[in-house]
Structure formats: C-alpha cells, structure tokens
C-alpha cells in the first residue's frame, strides 16, 4: 500500500514536471522517500521514474534513470555513516541533486530552480514526517 502511494506521488510529480513546471520535483520526492524508507525498492522507483521523466520531457531515454540511481546510491552511502532524517540533509541533497541534474541538462537559471526545489523538498520531508508520526508513534525524528 505504502509503495503504491509513493508510486502515485512519483507519477503526479512527473506529470507536473513534464507539463506545468520546470522544477525537478521527482528529485526532492525520491530523496525524501529514500530518507524515510531505507529499502532497495527505492531504486526501482527511481529507475521507473527516470524512464517516465525522460519520456514526458523528451530527453534521452534512461538518462534520468541513471542520474536518479546514482543520486539514491549516494544518499544510501551517506546514510551508512551519518544521520539523514533531518531537514538540512534533505535540503542539501535535493539542492545538490537538482543542481547537477539541471546543470547537465543545461537548463536556464538552474541555481534558483534548484533552490526552489530544495525548499519544496523540505515541504515533502515534513509531510512524510507527519505521516510517519501518525503511523508509528515510537519513531523519534531529530531535526
């Protein structure tokens, strides 16, 4: 059920990204999902999200998949040493991830777009945290 909900969110984010906005919402979403769900299934989500993003945005197919997979791997590698369930990590990860993604695709004003995306990423993080608190009361999340 949880993964169905995440898939739906990713689909919505991709549709918005490919249609209405130029902000790579999927990066913030994937980062938040990876932070709260330490499961390898996130890689599958990243892979298929990348395929859809490239299809909708008419980029080279699976370029985004590769980028998202590497992005998620780096989050997991960082998570082995440090605490990642905090606002600042999500902000930095989303910001740097968006910066790299938009920079490679040579988007205009990619610095400001990445900043906006990082702020949106924090918003997604807080929503997930509230959801998590409501589901399992025993978790302690530090800020």
């Amino acid at each position, binding site marked *: 059920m949880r993964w169905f909900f995440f898939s739906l969110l990713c689909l919505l984010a991709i*549709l*918005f990204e*490919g*249609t*209405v906005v130029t902000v790579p919402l999927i990066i913030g979403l994937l980062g938040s999902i990876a932070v709260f769900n*330490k*499961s*390898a299934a996130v*890689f*599958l989500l*990243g*892979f298929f999200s*990348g*395929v*859809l993003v*490239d*299809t*909708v945005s*008419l980029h*080279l*197919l*699976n*370029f985004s*998949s*590769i980028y998202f*997979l590497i992005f*998620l*791997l780096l989050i*997991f590698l960082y*998570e*082995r040493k440090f605490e990642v369930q905090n606002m600042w990590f999500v902000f930095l990860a989303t910001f740097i991830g968006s910066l790299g993604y938009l920079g490679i695709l040579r988007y205009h004003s990619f610095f400001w777009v990445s900043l906006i995306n990082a702020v949106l990423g924090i918003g997604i993080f807080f929503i997930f945290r509230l959801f998590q608190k409501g589901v399992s009361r025993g978790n302690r999340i530090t800020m």
Partner: protein
Amino acid sequence: MVKKNTYFPIFFVLLACSLIVLSLSRFTVFQDFLLTIISPVQQNLISAFHTTDNKKIVALEEKNILLTEQLVNEKKLQQENIALHDQFASNQIPNRQLLAAHIVSIPSFIPGISFPEYIIIDKGQADAIKIGQAVVYRNMAIGLVNKVSDHFSQVSLLTNSSATFSVTTMATNALGIIKGQGNTNLILDNVLPSDHLRLDDLVITKGSQKLDGTDYPPGLVVGKITAIEKNPTALFQKARVHLTIDIPKLTMVFVIVNK
C-alpha cells in the same frame, strides 16, 4: 540502515538495464507508446492550469493580429506602387521590356557588417528569365542574373567581387572597366591616362548587350566618382566609384527581358 549487500546488486542491475536502454534509445517505439498514453493526461493538466481567458479579450487579440497583417500587406502594396510608378515614369528602358520581381532573400547580408553580393528574386524560368539578363531599378544598374530555377533566380550584384563590365563617365566620356569589391565602393579601372576623370561625375554603363539581349544596356547609372588615383608612371588611372542606390533597402527590382 540498509545493508551494503542488499541494495548494491539491485543498483547494479538497474544501472546495467539503464545503460542498455540508453544505448538503444534511438529506437523510440517505447517512448512513443508511453507518450501516446500520457499525452492526454498532460493536455488536460495544461488546460486545467491555463487561465481561462475572457472571450472578449481573445476576440480582440485575434482582431489585433488580423489588423497587423492587413497593415503589413498595405505597406507592401504601397511600396510596390511607388516602385512601379517610379520605374515606369522613367523612359530609359521601354516598359514592355521590364519584368517586375520581388527580392525574397539577400543571402549572407548582415547590416553594418557585410554587404550582399547576391539577391534572390521571385521570378524564374517559368517567367522567361534567362542567365545574363540585366536587373535594374529605375535607371540604375543592380546586377545580372547568374542562376535560374523554375520560380526563382539569383542575381549577382554589381558590387560582387567577380563583377566586371565596361562603363563610361557622363561628363568626360572616359572609358573604363568597373570591378566590384564586395562593398558599396567599386573600382573604375583601365582608364587611359589621356582620359579625364572628374570627382562627383556619374558613371554609366557603356553597353555590353549580346545578341540575345542579355547583359547591361547602355546608359544605366552605376555610381558616382568619389576618389581618383592618377599615377604618372602607371599604365592606367583608377577611380573609386560609390553606389548611388542602397541595394539592401530595395524590395522590388526589374529584369530586362527583351520581349
């Protein structure tokens, strides 16, 4: 914490799949299929976010565009009218010999940087245009047709660096050869030292028409002498001739077809 051996295999498998698909990305069948499914959703999403315009505003905007188009067409007609009136008021060349043509392109022309050496006109073989026919505007020489297709022709301007033709000066009747320099200044060369050149004198074509009527007829204005180079030891004297017409600003020219 996810153990190293849990996610690394999945990561590498998915990465390999991505690389394989990336290398096959020129086959867009899959992408097209996905887009066919997703595009209706995208369209609905766009229209949902599109602010619904007031019908009145939309109608006014459309009318504005229509009026702008009409304005442009009227301006074009006005310019055509003036050009035709000017040309046929001039009795230098009999009217029945002239074919009006619009300039549709001035290749490699950058205002202020480069001067055109060719123009493309909207008349071709279908309109009985032949290579070598002279192109004029009023009584001024513009160039010679050097390439012809069915409906278009390329005119090599007299400013072209390969243009050469015989001319004479109006006041002093000095004979010489005009050589194009790729800009608005032409060189009048091969003028005998015994001939007299005068500043601001008009240079006109001597006439080099062939039996089939191609090439420049006599009496077409080329330009005005702006500088004279007379070296006592040189075989010939030279002069710089400046064009009297701004060719890039023309919209219409006339081809001498000699019916």
